Structure formats: structure tokens, C-alpha cells
């Protein structure tokens, strides 16, 4: 049914090349291990193959073991691990095995959580230990054990456990290869973020949940929600109910309850949600509901710096959002502020003259006043780097600077004692489609920062999925698999991600992880295409594209 000769010819070419590389393109977890992503800090493994009971039981221990977060995660991962009908407890095959008293090597998963606190904050302990071994003299029951200080560490351990489990098509059961496993793991950075942008394109709740779920597979832990921008204001703000008139349509909105549900859903997966209200630029859509926020009807951005009303609205938004977003960081934007409108609008110009302000002074005044509002609501402000480059010495010392523009800005910010988030646009802007995975992978947030005490001020990094050309139809395949490359950079040890030839040390694992995402229903794009989110170049194995 292929319509034309040309295509047939190109297909033929691909067969030929495929048959040459077919031995390379069929990795099995039984071959060179470990197919884990991101790579754990420390691990050792053996040479045994263990079978996993489809009726795997959860045994909990420790003060926090009884957390519903642990129980719900266990149920989720059971669905992921046993997704083939034949491997499931309810399947006929499994029942026959049971009648024949087939013994499985791993019959239970023990999860020990020491702390009963479920508070999820920046720097929460995400470390865990995972052991998988067969029944022997030392352990009476064949089991897997995850031990963690917090439930969030246990979640990371469960993810790793699920990556050890592979469906074996010959025995039609789930197996763990290369056991016994001993894994001791913790993240290199406490902040491992992904930005989504719901102003340029509205993303439905279900899609945001798909994104959050997929983040947990790569152990990312902060969803940076760039809610509002100049194009649309999709968010309900009870204190200023006209603001969401700036939404694209009545269907493209989030209620307060929707936002709370997203925060709850994320927390169940160990992911913080950092909300952003980008001021004073990138805020034109605010004025659809409250035109007073515009300098004038014909000059609408940045927000009118002269009016107390502007700051009342910011304070109202932040008060409403404080009830929804418990994360200690709150993003106030502050980037790309073009102050021409202030210069060109009579009443603003007069106000500037009255205070003897340049437009730059007014920009600083605006950002600092917004910072104080956030701080009064017990938030730590995050601002884009222009605020630091323009008036760094005046920023509140608690400010976290988010890099995007200049490659050495984190170096400069930490030298001044500020904390910093690395998001260099040349590498970690996912909307830049011409950045292939290896460039993403090789970007080091600590480059040029040698002093360990300064290194600590780099709290992590973030990949940014700006939404100008990414809606529901393409957002996940633009994020994945490249976000995974950054995720390993931020999770694994610096030695592990910096040494050797990544074509050998990382690429086969990334291929494998991309197919794992596909198998879990996440539409991660081919790894090998130079441009992101392009379709596969021809027929072939997932593991070879």
C-alpha cells in the first residue's frame, strides 16, 4: 500500500542498513547493564535472574511506611510493572502457575520509611537504598527492600525498582536480571525542574498530569508553572475575578480547585509546583479584565508602575495563590521588560519625573516591591536573571536567580551570595528544536564554579518548555527524551555524567529509557533525530531510533 516507488526505494535502503545494525539494535536488559535512567549514585549487581511475583505484596515499616503516598505509588508501579496481561496476577497463566505452586524469587517488596513527615520542600531528603536478592541464608524471604528517610526517597526507589523489572517474553513473567542488586542513591541537586507555559497555549488538566507523571519517571522534582503571560490569563483569582477574562476562551481556564488538584497530584509523585507570575513585563493579558493595569489602551505593557492598584492586584493574586501553592519558592519573573510604554504614556512619565526616576529605576522599584509582597506571604522570591544583571545589589538576599540568557550568570550570582537555577537557553530551552540530546546532556550547571561553598548555591537546573509552538498535540514529544538528558545531569554524580564517551555510556541507556517512556504511554520522540519532536526517519526499532 505504500504509494510510490520513491518511498519503497527509501524503505529498501533502510532494510539494508537495519539488517546490518540489527545486532546492535536489539538490546535486552540481560545484556550489558544497567539500563537505569538516571544512573544511581552507587550500585552493584550480580549475575542471577530473578522472577517477580505478579501478586507482589507490599510490606511497610518505619514511622512513615504507612503513608498513603507510599501505598498509592506502590499501586501505580504495580500497574506499570505488570502491564502485560500474561504477567498479571489475574491472568489465566498466573493462576495456572499458582495451582502448580510455581515459586517466584521475589514475592514481596518491603518499604521502610523512617520519617512520618510528608512535607515536600526544596532539599527534602530523596535518598534511598534498594536491595534485591534471592532467598538465601542471610534473608529468609526472597525480597526487595527500599529504605528511605522520607516518603519521597521511597518514591525514587520505587521508580528505580520498576526500571529493574522487565517483562520476559519467553517465560511471560516479570524478571529482574543481574541480581543481586544493591543500590544507594541520592540526587546531586535538590532542584530539578521543568517549566511549562500555559499562557501561549492552554494545556488541559489531563495533559499537565501526564507531564507530571512522566517527570517522576526521570526523577525530576519541580514543575515550574509559568501560568500567565501576555497572551492569556487562564487562572482563576477569586480576589480579582475579572483577571481570567484574559483567557483565550471559557474552555481554556483553570479554577482554583483545578490548580489545587494539580499540586496534590504532583505531591503524590514527590514533585513541587512552583507558580510564576511574571511582572512587570509579560503581563498584557491582565488588562483584559482590568484595563487600569495597562499604562494606556494603546500601550499595554509593562504593568502600570504608578498605580497602587497594580500592587493591590499582585498582592491579591499572591494571597490567592498562597492557599494553593505550598512550595517555598515563588517565581516573580522580571525578564524582558521593555519600558518604552512608561516613557511614552503621559501620566507614567509625569510620575517618573516626580520621583526623579529613570525607567530603569522604575523597573527596579517594581521588582523590589513585588518581592516584598511575596516575602510578606512567606515566599522566597525567584526572579529571571535580568533583575540580577540590572540591579543585583538591591535584590533581597534571599532571592533565587534563574539563569536563561547569559552563560556565566550563575557564576556571578553565587559570587554575590545569591542562589541560582541554571537554565541556559542554548542548551536547556526545549523550544529550541535544534539542540540534540548530547548538547543537553553535556551542559554542566557548575561550570566555572570551583569553590564548594559557592557550588552549593547552585540549587539545580531546569529545562524550559516555552509554549509558543507547543500545545497538547506536541508538548510531550518536545519535552521527551531531551528533558531526560538534563535529568540525569542533575541527578547522577558529576563523575558519572562527565567521564567517558557518552555515545557508549549514556546513549544506549537513553534509547532504552525513551522506549520505556513509550511503553508507559508517554510519546517521547526518537533520540537520534537532530531536530526535536520529528517523526522517525523510517521503519525501525524503537531502540535504534
Amino acid at each position: 500500500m505504500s504509494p510510490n516507488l520513491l518511498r519503497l526505494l527509501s524503505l529498501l535502503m533502510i532494510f539494508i542498513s537495519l539488517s546490518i545494525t540489527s545486532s546492535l539494535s536489539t538490546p535486552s536488559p540481560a545484556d550489558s547493564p544497567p539500563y537505569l535512567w538516571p544512573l544511581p549514585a552507587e550500585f552493584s549487581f550480580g549475575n542471577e535472574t530473578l522472577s517477580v511475583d505478579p501478586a507482589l505484596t507490599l510490606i511497610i515499616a518505619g514511622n512513615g511506611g504507612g503513608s498513603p503516598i507510599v501505598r498509592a505509588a506502590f499501586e501505580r508501579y504495580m500497574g506499570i510493572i505488570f502491564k502485560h496481561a500474561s504477567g498479571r496476577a489475574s491472568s489465566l497463566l498466573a493462576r495456572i502457575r499458582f495451582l502448580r505452586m510455581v515459586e517466584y524469587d521475589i514475592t514481596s517488596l518491603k518499604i521502610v520509611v523512617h520519617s512520618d513527615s510528608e512535607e515536600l520542600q526544596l532539599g527534602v531528603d530523596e535518598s534511598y537504598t534498594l536491595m534485591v536478592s534471592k532467598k538465601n541464608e542471610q534473608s529468609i524471604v526472597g525480597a526487595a527492600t527500599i529504605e528511605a528517610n522520607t516518603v519521597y526517597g521511597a518514591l525514587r526507589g520505587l521508580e528505580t525498582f520498576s526500571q529493574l523489572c522487565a517483562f520476559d517474553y519467553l517465560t511471560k513473567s516479570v524478571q529482574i536480571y543481574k541480581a543481586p542488586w544493591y543500590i544507594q542513591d541520592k540526587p546531586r541537586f535538590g532542584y530539578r525542574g521543568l517549566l511549562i507555559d500555559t499562557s501561549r497555549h492552554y494545556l488541559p488538566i489531563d495533559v499537565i498530569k501526564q507531564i507530571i507523571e512522566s517527570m517522576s519517571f526521570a526523577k525530576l522534582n519541580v514543575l515550574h508553572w509559568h501560568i500567565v503571560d501576555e497572551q492569556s490569563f487562564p487562572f482563576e483569582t477569586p480576589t480579582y475575578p475579572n483577571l481570567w477574562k484574559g483567557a483565550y476562551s471559557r474552555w481554556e481556564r483553570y479554577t482554583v480547585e483545578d490548580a489545587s488538584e494539580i499540586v496534590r497530584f504532583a505531591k503524590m509523585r514527590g514533585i513541587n509546583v512552583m507558580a510564576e507570575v511574571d511582572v512587570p513585563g509579560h503581563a498584557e493579558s491582565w488588562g483584559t479584565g482590568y484595563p487600569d493595569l495597562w499604562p494606556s489602551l494603546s500601550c499595554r505593557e509593562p504593568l502600570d508602575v504608578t498605580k497602587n492598584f497594580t500592587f493591590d492586584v499582585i498582592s491579591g493574586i499572591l494571597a490567592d495563590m498562597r492557599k494553593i501553592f505550598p512550595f517555598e519558592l515563588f517565581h516573580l519573573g522580571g525578564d524582558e521588560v521593555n519600558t518604552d510604554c512608561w516613557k511614552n504614556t503621559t501620566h507614567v512619565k509625569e510620575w517618573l519625573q516626580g520621583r526623579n526616576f529613570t525607567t530603569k529605576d522604575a523597573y527596579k522599584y517594581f521588582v523590589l516591591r513585588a518581592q516584598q509582597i511575596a516575602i510578606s506571604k512567606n515566599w522566597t522570591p525567584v526572579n529571571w536573571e535580568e533583575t540580577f544583571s540590572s540591579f543585583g545589589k538591591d535584590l533581597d538576599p534571599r532571592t533565587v536567580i534563574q539563569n536563561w540568557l547569559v552563560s556565566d550568570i550563575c557564576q556571578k550570582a553565587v559570587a554575590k551570595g545569591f542562589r541560582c537555577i541554571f537554565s541556559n537557553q542554548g542548551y536547556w530551552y526545549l523550544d529550541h528544536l535544534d539542540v540534540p540530546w548530547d548538547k543537553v546532556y553535556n551542559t554542566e550547571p557548575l561550570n566555572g564554579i570551583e569553590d564548594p561553598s559557592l557550588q552549593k548555591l547552585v540549587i539545580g537546573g531546569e529545562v524550559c518548555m516555552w509554549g509558543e509552538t507547543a500545545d497538547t498535540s506536541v508538548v510531550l514529544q518536545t519535552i521527551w527524551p531531551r528533558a531526560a538528558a538534563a535529568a540525569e545531569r542533575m541527578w547522577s554524580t558529576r563523575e558519572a555524567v562527565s567521564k567517558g564517551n557518552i555515545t557508549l555510556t549514556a546513549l544506549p541507556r537513553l534509547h532504552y529509557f525513551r522506549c520505556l517512556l513509550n511503553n508507559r504511554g508517554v510519546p517521547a520522540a526518537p533520540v537520534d533525530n537532530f531536530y526535536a519532536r520529528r517523526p522517525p526517519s523510517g521503519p525501525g526499532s524503537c531502540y535504534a531510533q
Partner: protein
Amino acid sequence: MRGRGAKIAGVLPLFMLFIAGTISAFEDIERLRIWPLPAQVSHGGRRMYLSGDFKLVTEGTKYGDTSGILKEGFDRMLSIVRLSHVISGDWNSSGSGGSALLQGLHVIISSSTDELEYGADESYKLVVPSPEKPSYAQLEAKSVYGALHGLQTFSQLCHFNLKKKVIEILMTPWNITDQPRFSYRGLLIDTSRHYLPLPVIKNVIDSMTYAKLNVLHWHIVDTQSFPLEIPSYPKLWNGAYSSSQRYTFEDAAEIVNYAQRRGIHVLAEIDVPGHALSWGKGYPALWPSKNCQEPLDVSNDFTFKVIDGILSDFSKIFKFKFVHLGGDEVNTTCWSATPRIAQWLKKHRMSEGEAYQYFVLRAQKIALSHGYEIINWEETFINFGSKLNSKTVVHNWLNTGLVENVTASGLRCIVSNQENWYLDHIDAPWQGFYANEPLKNITDKKQQSLVLGGEVCMWGEHIDASDIEQTIWPRAAAAAERLWTPYAKLAKNPNKVTTRLAHFRCLLNRRGVAAAPLVGGGRVVPLEPGSCLAQ
């Protein structure tokens, strides 16, 4: 934070279409925002709310639902209706005195069976009362599968009320009587060029139900890979891309079961004798020779034993009355080029063309012996149409005018003409999908009745788990309306339905389906910021 200064500028193309629509009688029907458009609809102008414990009631029904198909369908309907926002409103205070409150849906099904039979009645009648009337909506159907279609329509009547934060139905009372125009409304997926994981196939099936498509044509195997387990010939799936890009027999049974519970038939295809190179990875004897590997060896009885084994295994899980035997694009040069087969041809006094016919007809007989009726691609009809078994359905893809010839000869036909209904032609816009009329130039009633329907084809050369949904949707929906809605109600100019289709595309997005923008061909990416409804 952005490298470029994007501004809202050019949603112009679509706006132009909207304007064009308003000028020429923006029909009431287009404002209904139901896709595909039902056969008959009337409505009022009142608002009702869904109760927070909206119930399924089945008093007076003949259908026992021991399989739970109706209950599950109802629960799925409710969860997709509630998917787009958290329902936090107090529904009891939503109506004036509770009279505007819908307590539930009363479903009455007159057939007691839930066997999914091809051609069975898919009609339904849906009544949503006005606020003054009894507090249950009513759904009547002959079979549970008709009721599932009714549930889909009901889900499209439901909207989230942003003030009260409950689900509402506008324009009540509703009176909808509906049935499909064609009994075969298909979508092809191709798991040989790229393996599609189980959750991806299930997502495709779910999305099909939203557009009331009812046949998943599973092109399982092709030249590139053989991913399915065949118990009778256990080495066949050695032809899979890798040890993990496979479907167990149980996986296939699960897909069939998953689809059946949603009213969708699964049409399995093995494409013989061409498009079968991957078979020989496990059984090299199926190749003419090591260096000439396609089509399957016509001279070897083993070839037909393997086909018999496959179809015997198929008959245990693929319960649809049809099986697809392919038969397209057969390049027979390998047969003459292989001395052993050349000799066999000579002995049997067969040309290559005759051997092709011999192969297809013998495969047809095997399928018939397993109780299947056969579907073959159109080349079989073009080359030896008069020899095909009378139970053959000819599947069009290549030639215009084929449907006329096939039905004139008395055979049945499925329409998939590539220029309009091949989804892998990404330069084909949705308007072409919408305008493609299966009965074009066929006036004779008897001939018309031989056109079972049509199918959009998602060939997999450039399609994997990462781009399948946005390549299928929304264009498949345009074809789905063509196949469902009465001819007289279809827009003569596809652009008249743009607004309604844009709404359906956004509805798919809200349900987590990655349907692409409308502006452009297939799988287009939004060019700039904007509303889902305007792109």
C-alpha cells in the same frame, strides 16, 4: 525568557473561515458542537445541571449487563465528563428547587445479548428532559453497543459551568435519534513498521470511540517485523525488532477484549504473499531463497501450513467475521529468479501472475475453513476479480473508480482511497478527509449497499508511539463524520464545519488525546500562541 518576540498576529486564516461561516446562514446545527453530527436532533433553550451522584438506572431493560460493558461505559463517560475540571460545586443548590437537576441516566436496551456482531443495530435514542420534566435523561438502544454511542453523544452535551463549578447541559430539552450511515468505519494501525506499545494501542481505541469509529484494522505484520506470538509456529515472532517489541497471544486477546467492550471490532491482517519478509526470520524456508526473500515461497506446502497455523490461532482470539489477507503490491520476480520455484511454475504451467492468483485463492480457502470471510486489497480484484471467492470484500486504496467496478461485479467494498484517506499523507488536509464520499458516482441502490463503509489508514513508516495520535487526529474525525452522518446532513463545503471540528479537536485535547491543529495538513504544529479553538 524567550529568545523570540512572538506576538499574537496571525490567527487570520481561521478567522476568515469563521466569518465566511457567519455570512452564509450559520446553521443552528453547527452550533450544537456534537461530532459526528447525529441523524436527527432537536433541542430547546433551557439549562440543567448534573447531580453530583449522577446515577445509571436500568429498570425495564432486557439487557442484564453481566459483562459490565454498560456499567463500565457509563463510568468512563462520567470520568471523561469530569476530566477537564474539578467538580467542586454544591450541586443541590445549583438548580431552583432542584428541578433543574438531572439525577441520572435511564438506559433501556432491548436486546439481551452483548455479542459484538458486525452490521448489528448501532442506533440509539437520547432524551434529555427540560427542567420541568422528570429528573432522568433517557437512553434507548437496541443493543448495548448502540447505548455506548449514546453515552458518547451525552458526554458531548455536558459542559463545565465555571461559576457553579458543576456539570451543566445547555439547550435542554434534547431529543436525539441517531444511527450510523455505514456499518464499517475503520482505522488502520501498522505495528510492523514501528512497534506500538499496548497502552498506545489502547489510547487509540479509546479515541476512536469518541468519533464513533468501530473497526480497528490491525496491520500486524509486514516486511519489517513480525511482532505477534503465533503459538502454532513459535519462531515467527523471532522476526520482531527486538525481544521486547512483541505482543504475546494474551496481549492480542486483551486488545480484542478491550476494543470489544467499547464496541470496536478488531480486523487482523496478515498480508500475503508480499509484505511478508519478516516471517522468514524464524522460518527461512518461507523465503524463496536467502537473497530473494519476498514474496513467500509459493511452491512450498509449508508456506500454506504456516498460514493455516496462523489463521487457526487467529480464530481463537480475533472474533470479527472478517480477516484481512492483504494481497497488495506483490512483486513476483523472486519466484522466477529462484530456480526451484521457476521449475515449479513450469511444472504447473503457471505464469508469475497465475501463481499470485493461486496463492491468494489458496489463502482465501484456508481463511474460509476457519470460518472467516475475507478482505483483500484491490490488486487482487484488478488482477483476477472474477476468481475471488464471493465472500471477498475488496479493500480499495489505489484506483479511483474501483468501487464502481467492484460493486458492479457483485462484491463488497471498503473505501480507503489513498489521496484522501491515507493518514500518512501528511500533506492531505482535513477538508479532503471530510469531502471524500464513498458512494461517489454510485447511483444503483444495490451497488450502494455493497459499500460497507470506509477506513482511514495510519501506515507506520514514520509513525511510532511519539507521533501517532497527532497524525491520526483530527483528520480521522473528519472521515468519521462522513461515515456516520446521513448524507443530506453533511456539509457540501467542509469549511462550514470548521468551528465544530475545532471544538471536537479541543475536546480530544481535554481528554488527553494529542490531536493536532486544524490549520494546514496533518500533524501540523501550532505556528504561534493562540487558542485551541482558533488553530
